[in-house]
């Protein structure tokens, strides 16, 4: 029945649930790897057993077919197992993206009547639990889930049960939930397996966020054929320039990728003159129209046989409904979206729902058993989108989904996409209804009227909002901030055009042709944007723009405010050397972080313009001064403070929150340093992090242990116990100073509320992390250990090895050196201190009590932080930053850690109490 090549499944025919297919596969290949995640593997048997436990848990607690269960989790093996468990119970999962604003999540929970959410503990605070209808939460790692039987269930689940609900942008101002039944999911998976010739030895990368239907494509079809799904952690999603590395290092064979990412990847392959990784045999680009130019470049860089497909499909057709597989010699101006998949049918109809002739443009409709049940709670939208039409030659009407896409049949039998009938758009492969953005804008008191469009400049798509204001001085920055609190980031326009009124046609409709060009709109910057003025500024702006990957950079924009990191500084400097023929020291860049100041700096050091500079001295200096003041106002008012403890005075720097429009958190982070050369290596990084966090509304305290840095104290007294005592003193000090700082800000009316006590979180690096973990701190909100020392004796051995290497490698010294005892790589290390270091056993001695526990690890971090060895409450977040704590030759090298910094900021600013 299912091996037919045409759409032969009737609307009433049983297809079976996805779970039944998966269970059959488990019986065939119980010991094959089903999921791989951060070096760990789950066999089909493991995966099935754990999913069964989740299903039994749900049934035990009274959940029934079609009940919706939320999943608010990062990508992980556990997330996949949870999805499978929910499917096996007959319930439907609803992905809840933790990146969404709280209002949006609350709407989805309410709309889908979600009573239970499988939620990573880090995301609990995204939900209001005060109402009577508030959902319950369960941590997916909760041990009570493991109390249930692991055997398959005997549940009789009709294949018309709901499998999942995926929310997409809705034109009425709220997202709409697309309901996918088991039969649709199964049908789609079978078609996918057939088209892409999935094999049991495939390794498919799970790259997409879970609320994107590409994730369905990445997870479910491969698990039907006994192949492995290799999960990439969520925080790495945007680091697409490392995609090749990820594919190669994980021997990935199959990749489903949003078109926007694929384009970027191709550009990177071209720029780095590298080839498509040889392990890949299948690449599916989906979500947006394919750039033929990119496809041509792809072919040039692909030196082996790869099945490459252009897939098309709205969420309402489960995932993909048509696909185009270009043959070896294919070339044309436009790439078609291909032919329908197995069990799908495509129809191109005119306004009267009659089939158009081949070559004529009409609206594309899809039919078949993989169509969605409809939108949840939207009967009106269902009536418009899902229609029954008596097609030519049929006796019974067929249920069709109206895609809203214009298309035509090509002589080859392929379909060519020709645009939209409405204003829906795809940006970065996200489907966006501008009406939803307009609806949110209309709720803003300052806005009288608005229109949102998609535009394109130099190949880069962006959203633009035309706005008529009620309040004359409302800025683009304020509007964007307003939207950011209510919409996903990808739905916030990047240009704002303020008009007295929207131009109208004679019929009273908005005259889109008469609108000013979108690219003339204002970019939402905290301060007004000023274009680069001179040739040099324009060149610098172009370099920054390419390095930071943002469309344009103004002359007053601060490199670090725009997301620049130390690593990116070096890229800018390298490009400046190549393109502008000027080499400057890194520290010059740090001191001149805007286009204007950097260009003035370059001009002033180039002898040829010195006379012009002199002529302009007064203006130039005044401007420089104003810029510096502006820049300074965005930076924290750092305060050196002294913390007395056990007769020592600890040197510390307090970074009060910068009140620049961001919400004040009344939250203080205490940073505990690494030791010795590792502290030196990480010092600048931590200072930058402290600045970034203070700009995000947090207070930060950095301090030095007794006998280190600028603190007092003798080396003879240092011990890990003394430093633990230092940490306790610093945390108490932080509580008080942060409270006072907030109180002070309230007095100055910079923030509104200081009534709540200060929340304190702690971050430690290397030894600092281990000290934090083993210090009896209580009432801590979040604890973050970054590359902690797990076993002190191994750490001590590492230091000794490094020290020996420094003395004998003939790199630092001209001859082999002997050295006085009790010192390691430049730092005093008395024997008693060494003994206390060796006594550290982090996970056996953990004493800290906090609300959330995090361990971050850099890419090369070799110490054991696997999820098995971590205590239950600790959440492990691997990062791609390379630091090489344990490699020779790096003991004197500073590093940047953009991803770790980003993760730390994300942990600390999400769901603050």
């Amino acid at each position, binding site marked *: 029945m299912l091996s037919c090549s045409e759409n032969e499944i009737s609307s009433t025919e049983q297809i079976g649930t996805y779970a039944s297919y998966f269970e059959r596969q488990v019986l065939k290949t119980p010991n094959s790897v089903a999921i791989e995640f951060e070096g760990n593997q789950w066999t089909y048997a493991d995966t099935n057993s754990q999913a069964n436990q989740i299903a039994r848990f749900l049934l035990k607690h009274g959940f029934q077919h079609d009940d919706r269960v939320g999943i608010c989790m990062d990508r992980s093996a556990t997330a996949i197992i949870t999805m499978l468990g929910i499917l096996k119970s007959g319930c439907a999962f609803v992905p809840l993206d933790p990146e969404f604003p709280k209002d949006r999540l609350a709407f989805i929970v309410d709309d889908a009547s979600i009573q239970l959410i499988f939620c990573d503990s880090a995301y609990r605070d995204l939900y209001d639990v005060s109402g009577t209808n508030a959902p319950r939460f369960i941590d997916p790692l909760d041990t009570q889930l493991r109390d249930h039987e692991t055997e398959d269930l005997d549940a009789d689940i009709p294949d018309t049960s709901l499998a999942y609900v995926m929310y997409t942008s809705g034109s009425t101002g709220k997202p709409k939930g697309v309901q996918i039944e088991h039969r649709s999911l199964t049908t789609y998976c079978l078609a996918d397996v057939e088209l892409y010739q999935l094999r049991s030895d495939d390794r498919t990368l799970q790259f997409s966020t879970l609320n994107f239907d590409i994730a369905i494509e990445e997870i479910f079809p491969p698990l039907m054929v006994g192949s492995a799904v290799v999960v990439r952690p969520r925080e790495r999603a945007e680091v697409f320039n490392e995609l090749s590395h990820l594919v190669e290092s994980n021997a990935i064979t199959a990749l489903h990728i949003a078109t926007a990412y694929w384009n970027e990847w191709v550009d990177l392959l071209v720029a780095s003159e590298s080839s498509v990784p040889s392990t890949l045999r299948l690449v599916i680009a989906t979500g947006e129209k394919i750039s033929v130019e990119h496809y041509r470049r792809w072919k040039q860089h692909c030196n082996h046989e790869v099945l490459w497909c252009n897939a098309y499909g709205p969420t309402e057709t489960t995932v993909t409904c048509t696909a185009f597989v270009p043959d070896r010699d294919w070339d044309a101006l436009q790439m078609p979206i291909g032919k329908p998949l197995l069990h799908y049918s495509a129809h191109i109809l005119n306004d009267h729902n009659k089939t158009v002739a081949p070559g004529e443009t009409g609206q594309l409709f899809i039919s078949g058993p993989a169509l969605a049940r409809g939108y949840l709670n939207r009967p009106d939208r269902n009536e418009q989108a899902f229609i029954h039409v008596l097609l030519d030659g049929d006796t019974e009407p067929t249920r069709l989904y109206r895609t809203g896409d214009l298309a035509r049949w090509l002589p080859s039998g392929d379909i060519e996409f020709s645009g939209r009938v409405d204003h829906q758009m795809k940006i970065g492969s996200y489907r966006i209804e501008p009406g939803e953005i307009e609806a949110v804008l209309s709720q803003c008191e300052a806005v009288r009227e608005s229109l949102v469009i998609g535009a394109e400049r130099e190949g880069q798509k962006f959203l633009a909002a035309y706005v008529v204001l009620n309040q004359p001085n409302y800025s683009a920055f304020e509007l964007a901030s307003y939207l950011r609190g209510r919409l996903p980031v990808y739905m916030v326009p990047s240009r704002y055009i303020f008009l007295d009124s929207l131009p109208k046609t004679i019929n009273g409709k908005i005259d889109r042709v008469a609108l000013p060009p979108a690219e003339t709109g204002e970019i939402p910057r905290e301060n007004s944007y000023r274009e680069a003025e001179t040739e040099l500024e324009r060149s610098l702006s172009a370099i920054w723009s390419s390095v930071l990957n943002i469309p344009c950079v103004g002359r007053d924009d601060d490199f670090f405010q725009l997301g620049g990191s*130390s*690593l990116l500084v*070096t890229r800018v400097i390298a490009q400046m050397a190549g393109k502008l023929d000027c*080499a*400057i*020291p890194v*520290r*010059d860049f*740090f*001191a*001149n972080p805007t286009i204007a*100041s*950097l260009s*003035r*700096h370059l001009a*002033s*050091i180039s002898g040829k313009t010195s006379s012009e500079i002199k002529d302009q001295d007064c203006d130039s200096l005044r401007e*420089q001064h104003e810029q*510096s003041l502006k*820049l*300074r106002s965005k*930076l924290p*008012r*750092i*305060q*050196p403070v*002294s913390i007395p403890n056990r007769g020592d*005075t600890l*040197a510390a*720097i307090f970074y009060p929150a910068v009140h620049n429009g961001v919400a004040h958190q009344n939250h203080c982070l205490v940073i505990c340093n690494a030791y010795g050369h590792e502290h*030196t290596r990480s010092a*600048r990084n931590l200072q930058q992090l402290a600045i970034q966090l203070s700009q995000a509304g947090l207070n930060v305290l950095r301090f030095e242990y007794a006998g*280190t*840095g*600028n*603190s*007092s104290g003798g080396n003879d007294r240092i011990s890990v116990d003394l430093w633990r005592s230092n940490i306790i003193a610093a945390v108490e000090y932080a509580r008080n100073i942060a409270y006072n700082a907030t109180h002070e800000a309230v007095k100055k009316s910079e923030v509104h509320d200081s009534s709540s006590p200060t929340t304190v979180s702690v971050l430690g690096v290397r030894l600092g992390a281990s000290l934090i973990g083993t210090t009896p701190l209580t009432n801590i909100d979040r604890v973050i250990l970054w590359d902690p020392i797990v076993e002190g004796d191994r750490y001590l051995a590492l230091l000794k090895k490094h020290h020996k290497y420094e003395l*004998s*490698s*003939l790199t*630092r*010294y*001209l001859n082999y*050196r002997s*050295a006085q005892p009790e*010192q390691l790589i*430049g*730092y*005093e290390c008395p024997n008693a201190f060494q003994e206390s270091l060796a006594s550290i056993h982090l996970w056996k001695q953990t004493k800290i009590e906090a609300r959330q526990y995090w361990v971050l690890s850099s890419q090369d971090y070799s110490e054991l932080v696997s999820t098995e060895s971590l205590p239950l409450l600790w959440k492990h977040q691997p990062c791609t*930053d*390379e*630091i*090489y704590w344990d490699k*020779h030759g790096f003991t*004197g*090298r*500073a590093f*940047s*850690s*953009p991803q770790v910094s980003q993760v730390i900021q994300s942990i600390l600013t999400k769901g603050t109490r």
Partner: protein
Amino acid sequence: MIETHHVFGNYENLYGIHSKSNVGSCDNASAAIPKTAVLMLTAGMLSSVGPSRLHVELAKSLSQRGLASFRFDLSGIGESLAVGSPGSSQKRAAREVQQAMDLLELEYGYDRFMLFGLCSGADDAIVTALEDPRIVCASLMDGCGYRTNRHYAGLLLRKYFPKLLSFRKWQDYLSGLLSKSKVASSTMPQGLDIREFPSQEQALREITTLIDRGVKLRFTYTSGVIDYYSYEKQFYDMFPSFKNRAEIAVSYHPQWDHTVMLREDRHQLIENVTQWFTTKAATIESETTPSNTRDDKVVCSGGRSSQASELSSYTSVYQN
């Protein structure tokens, strides 16, 4: 040792620590207040603590021998915030050193300064000394250097020859070749910072200008800069006209590395520098009339003069 931490500068973006002299205190308010202090300049991208706490230990040593000191971070380094000002890196450094001197003059009454600079700090010291007459001495470690014919022989003999004979070095080289791609890190760029040496002729002119003004200079070289300095008398081969100038002292320590990692080397360096600064300070102090006791400027426990508050927004006092 009493240490006072300051945030100062035109944009309140610079951070530094003043270490008071332990000799002479509030108990002896009538004693002459030394008018000379040591200023430690930022070494490369390292914070005011210095490599392996060199600056902290040097401050302690100087304090015990009666000399006050100030160590601070240039903008964008250590704890100092990056707020830009135009001009070359060294010109900007010079302006920031001058802001530090202004603070110290206003807050503590010092009007003559002795600079200690390692690596880029040595380069910055020369530029600052040329700009500001308050600078009377400078101890420069691994400062500018220029290759001579004899240098190349020294380079081969001292750097490359021992490496050629080293089994370990060959082993490292081969393993480096094999693991090259793995070690090339995206988050640890290297080799992009640039020392800014003047031409040899310009260096000659600048040093001559300084010593003609009476500035005392002490050049110390280590094996860390063997690529341009490789034997004891190289300084005088670079600048023969300084051979008989008493204002210049030169020492070469091929056993030390660039950042004096080992305690024994560091202590030796600290002892040498302290000795040189205290000797020079004594000479300078004796050359001036000790009439100004400046009682009103003594800060014993974190107090701050009202004038200073314009420059210094926060201070914090430490007892070491």
